[in-house]
C-alpha cells in the first residue's frame, strides 16, 4: 500500500549464485515467485510447526526442509511453497523477523525451489553459516562446525595427556539429543532419529502450481498461469563451494 516507503531495489539485494540467468531474470523470478525461503530456524523445528505458522498467511502447497547433506537431518532452513502470489507476499511481510521456536526467523522471496536446493552447502554438510560461527547456539547444533572440530581435536589431545579438560561441552552434532547441558532440555516426540526421511520420497517437486494439483490441471498443460521453470537451472546441488551459501550475503 504505502509505495512511498517501499524500496523497490530491496527485492534483489541478494543474488543467489546458483541462479543461472541474468539479473533481470532473477528479479522477475523473485517478483513472481510463490516460494518463500525461511532461514535462521532451529534444527529442531518441524514441518508441522512451519505449517501452523505459515498457513496463517495462506494455503500452503508444499514445505521442503533444508537438510544436512551428510546426516540427512534438518539444518535450519526450509522452503515454503504457496499457491498464490498474494499469500507469498503476506508471508514475507508478516512472518519475517517474528519468532518460531524462540528464534527470530527470516522469510524472503525465493526464486523457486529446484531439486538439490534442499541440501546444505557447507563443507560439513549443513549451512555455510554454521561452518564458521563461533557462538554457542543450542538450537543449531551448538558451536559452529569448525569450532567443534577444533574442540574435538583439543579434547583428544588432552585425553592422551592429563585428561583434565573435561569441561568442554560435548558438541558433536547429535541431532535428536541435545548438545550438552545447554539449551532447554530434550524434546520428547521430536527426536530426529525417528524422523529420518526417505529422500527418494521427496522427488515430486515439480508439479503444477494449481490448488487442484491433480488430474484437472494435467488435462490442460498448454496454459499454465505461471511461467515454466528455466531448464538451464542446475538440477543437482552437489557441490563443495562454500562461498555461495544461500543467504550469506543477504543483510
Amino acid at each position, binding site marked *: 500500500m504505502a509505495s512511498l516507503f*517501499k524500496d523497490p531495489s530491496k527485492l534483489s539485494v541478494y543474488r543467489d549464485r546458483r541462479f543461472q540467468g541474468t539479473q533481470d531474470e532473477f528479479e522477475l523470478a523473485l517478483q513472481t515467485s510463490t516460494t518463500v525461503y525461511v532461514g535462521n530456524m532451529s534444527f529442531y523445528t518441524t514441518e508441522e510447526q512451519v505449517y501452523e505458522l505459515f498457513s496463517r498467511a495462506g494455503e500452503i502447497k508444499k514445505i521442503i526442509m533444508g537438510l544436512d547433506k551428510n546426516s540427512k537431518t534438518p539444518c535450519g532452513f526450509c522452503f515454503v511453497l504457496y499457491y498464490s502470489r498474494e499469500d507469498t507476499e*503476506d508471508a514475507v511481510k508478516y512472518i519475517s523477523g517474528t519468532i518460531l521456536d524462540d528464534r527470530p526467523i527470516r522469510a524472503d522471496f525465493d526464486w523457486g525451489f529446484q531439486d538439490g536446493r534442499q541440501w546444505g552447502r557447507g563443507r560439513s554438510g549443513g549451512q555455510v553459516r554454521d561452518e564458521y560461527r563461533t557462538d554457542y547456539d543450542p538450537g543449531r547444533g551448538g558451536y559452529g562446525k569448525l569450532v567443534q572440530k577444533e574442540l574435538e581435536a583439543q579434547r583428544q589431545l588432552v585425553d592422551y595427556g592429563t585428561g583434565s579438560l573435561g569441561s568442554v561441552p560435548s558438541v558433536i552434532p547429535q541431532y535428536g539429543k541435545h548438545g550438552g547441558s545447554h539449551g532447554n532440555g530434550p524434546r520428547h516426540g521430536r527426536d530426529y532419529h525417528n524422523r529420518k526421511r526417505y529422500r527418494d520420497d521427496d522427488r515430486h517437486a515439480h508439479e503444477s502450481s494449481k490448488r487442484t494439483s491433480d488430474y484437472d490441471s494435467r488435462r490442460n498443460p498448454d496454459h499454465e498461469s505461471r511461467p515454466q521453470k528455466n531448464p538451464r537451472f542446475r538440477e543437482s546441488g552437489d557441490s563443495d563451494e562454500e562461498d555461495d551459501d544461500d543467504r550469506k550475503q543477504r543483510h
Partner: protein
Amino acid sequence: MSSWKSLLLRIGDKSPEYGTSSDFKDHIETCFAAIRRELDHYGDEILPFLLQCVEQLPHKTPLYGTLIGLMNLENEDFVKKIVEQTHQSFQDALNSGHCHKIRILLRFLTALMSSKVLTSTSLVVVFETLLSSAATIVDDEKGNPAWQACADFYITCILSCFPWGGAELVEQVPEELERVMVGVEAYLSIRRHTLDTGLSFFEDDGEVEKTLNEKDFLEDLWSRIQTLSTDGWKVDSVPRPHLLFEAQLVAGKSHEFGTISCPEQPDPPLTLSDITYGKQKYAAELNYPQRIRRLNIFPSSKFEDVQPIDRFVVEEYLLDVLLFFNGCRKECASFMVGLPVPFRYEYLMAETIFSQLLMLPQPPFKPIYYTLVIIDLCKALPGAFPAVVAGAVRALFEKIADLDMECRIRLILWFSHHLSNFQFIWPWDEWAHVLELPKWAPQRVFVKEVLDREVRLSYWDKIKQSIETAPGLEELLPPKGGPNFKFATEDGEKSEQHALSSELCNMVKGRAAARDVISWLDENVIPKHGSDISLVVVVKTLLDIGSKSFTHLITVLERYGQVISRICDDQDKQVLLISEVGSYWENNTQMTAITIDRMMGYRLISNLSIIKWIFSPENVEQYHTSDRPWEILRNALCKTYNRISDLKKEISSLKKDIVAAEEAVAKTQEELNAAESKLTLVDGEPVMGENPVRTKRLKAYAGKAKEQETSIRNSLEAKEALLTRALEENETLFLSLYKGFSSILTERLPAASSAQTLQDLKSINPAGANAMDLEEPSAMEMEMDNEDSKPEKSHLNGKTEHSYTVGENEQWCLTTLGYVKAFSRQYASEIWPHIEKLDAEVLSEDSHPLFRKAVYSGLRRSMDSI
C-alpha cells in the same frame, strides 16, 4: 532520494531530514524553502509526488495544506495545477467508488480551504453535492434505499471533514455551514437506522431494545460532531499549522474547485421483494463498507482525557497508518506511537487494533498483520503497551461466552501466536479456575484451544513448562500421544489384518507401483475380506507410512492416491475414509485437519463427504467442546472457495489472452494478404504474391496465430464449463450444509414456542447446573453480573468459586447457531445467488426460527419476516 523528496515525505516526523527540530513551523519553512528552490526545475516531479504524499500520509494533511498555501503565494499556476489534478482524482474516485480516496481527498480539500488555497464556498458546494446525492439515494420514490450504504458513506465523509476545518468554515461561511448541518440532520431523519446484528462482536440478541436504541456509526459520529460544534469546533488532536502562517496566507489567491457529480446508483429491482432488496443492500454494503466497528472493552475511565471527537480523529489516524503502512513494519509502528496528539492513547490504540483484528465479516488485512502490529507495538512501548494488551485479553476473556464464534477463533489464533513471540509467558494461574467449569464452558474451551495452538506452534513439553504456575491446566493440553496405528507389528498380535497391513507395507517399501497395489487388492484382498475391511487396512497402513511429516504424507498420497480412490469410489466410502483419518490422528487435530485437507486437494474426497462426516455423531458431540470439527469444516469451505476464485481468475486472464490472440491473428492475416496481393517478378514473369519464401513464412505465422487463438478458446471453454459445474456443486454444498444444520438443530433446540431468542436459550437452567453455586451472589455482584449466562464469582470463605450455568445441550445449540451465523456471514457472497433455492428447501416456515435467525443475520438479511 533527492532532498526535496525526503523533506516532503518526512515533514512532521522526528527524522534526520529535519535535524533536531520537531516544531511544525520549522518543518514547514524548511520544506517550503527547499521546494521553492526546486520548483522551476522539478515542478513536473514535485506535483505528482506531493499528491502521492497527500493520498498516502493522510495524518499529515494539515501540513501539506499549509505548505501548498505558502506555495500559492509564490506560484499560483503551480497550485492551480494541484487543485485541477485533485479535482480530477476526486471525480475519478467518486465514479469508481474508491472509498479511501474520496475520504482522504475531501479532507485534503478542507485543509486547502484552511490555508486559503480553495474558496470556502467551493468546498461547501462539494458538500452539498454529496448531500443531495445521499438524500436522493435514500428517497423511496426517486432513489434506491437499498444503496443507503453509499449515502451513509458520503455523509460520513462530510462529517469527517469538520474536525479538520469546522473552525475555519464557521468563521468564514457560518450560514453555509449551518445549511450543511441542517441538511445532514434532515438526511439522518429519513435514512434507516442500521441494525447490523450479524456483524456485531458480541451476541446480545436478547437485548433487542438496547440495539435499537444504540446509535449506529453515522448517528454516533453525528452526535460527536454536534458536541464539537457546541464546544466551538476546538479539536486537540488535529494540528492547525496554517494558523502559524496566517498573516502570510491571507494574501494568497483562493482558487475555485469546480463542480463534481456523484455517479448514479443502480436502479431499484423491478420486482421489489425481501430477496431482491436484500441482494442489492448486500452488494451496496460490500462496495461501501463501514470502516470501523467500535469494540468497547476497556472501562470508560481509561478514556477520560479523550474528547468524543478526539476518539474519532485518533481512530482515523490509526486506521490510515494501518492501511498505508501495511508491509512497512518500522514506519507503521513508529507512526502509530507518534501521532500528533497531546494526550495518551494506548487504550484507544489497543481497542482500535483489536476492533480490526476481530472485524466482521473480515478485517481489511489478514489477521496475522494485526498480530505483527501488536508485537511491534509491544516492543516500541515496552513499558505501556504489553499491559494494555493483557488488559484487552482479560476483558475479552470475561465476555468470551458472548463473543461471536468467528471472533473467538481469531482471538485464539492471535493469542497463541502472540504468546509464541513472547516466550509463552502468561499468568495462567489467573485462569486455572476454568478447570472447575463444565467442559463446554466457553472460557474453558478457549483456554484449551489456545493451548492446543501453542503446542502446534511449539511442542508439548515446552507448553507444559509454560503453565507451571497452574499445573492443573495440563488436563486441557492436547493428548501427548502420537498416531493410533492398530496394525503395529510390535504388539505381537497377528490377525489377518495385521498380516495384510505388513504385506502392503512391504510392497510400498519395495516401491511397488500404484497399479500393482490395486491389482493385489482386487485379486487377493477385496474378494476375501470385503471392501470395508480392505479400506481400513489400506488407509491405516498408508497413513502410518506417511505419518512422519507433512512431506511424507504428501508423498504417500501422490504415489498411492489412486489406490485410495480405487477403494473409496462413492460418498459412503469417502466418509469411512475420513473417519479412519480421524481415528488414526485422534490425538493430533492438526494432522487430522492437514490430512483431510490434502485428500480433498488430491480429490480423493469431496467437500460433500467432508460435510457428511462433520454431521456424524462422533463430531456432533464435540461441537461445543472443541474447535476440531469446525476447523475441518472451515478448511473444506475455504478450499472450495479458493478453487472457485482461482477458476474465475484464470477465466478472466484467458479472456485477456483471447483479445491479444485475436489481434495477433488479424495482424498476421493482414500481412499475409498484403504480401499475397502484391505482384512480383519471378524469373522474369509477373506472379501474384510476393517472394514465395516470405509468403510461405507469413502463411505459417498466420496459421500459428489462428491455432493459438483456437487453443486459448478451447481452454476458456473448458474452464468455463468447469466453473459452471463448480457453481452448481456449490449450490449442492450449501444446501447440504444448511440441511444438516437445520436437522441437527431441530433435534436439539427446545420448541420454538419456548425459545424465541438466544437469551431464552441461555436462561434455561437445567437441574443441577446451579448445584455448585448455592450461595446467593452478593448484591454488588448482582449489579455487575446480573445475567445468568455470565460466569459468576461467589466468595466462599474467601475462596473464589466459578460457575457456568448454561446447560450442555443449550451450549451445544448456542455454539452451533453461532457457527451457522459465522459461516453464513463469511460466505454470504457465495450463498446469496442460491438464496431462492435455500428459502424453498431449507429456510422454510417449518425450520426453527432461531436457526433462520442465525442464517439471516449472517447474510445481513432483514429479519422482519421471522
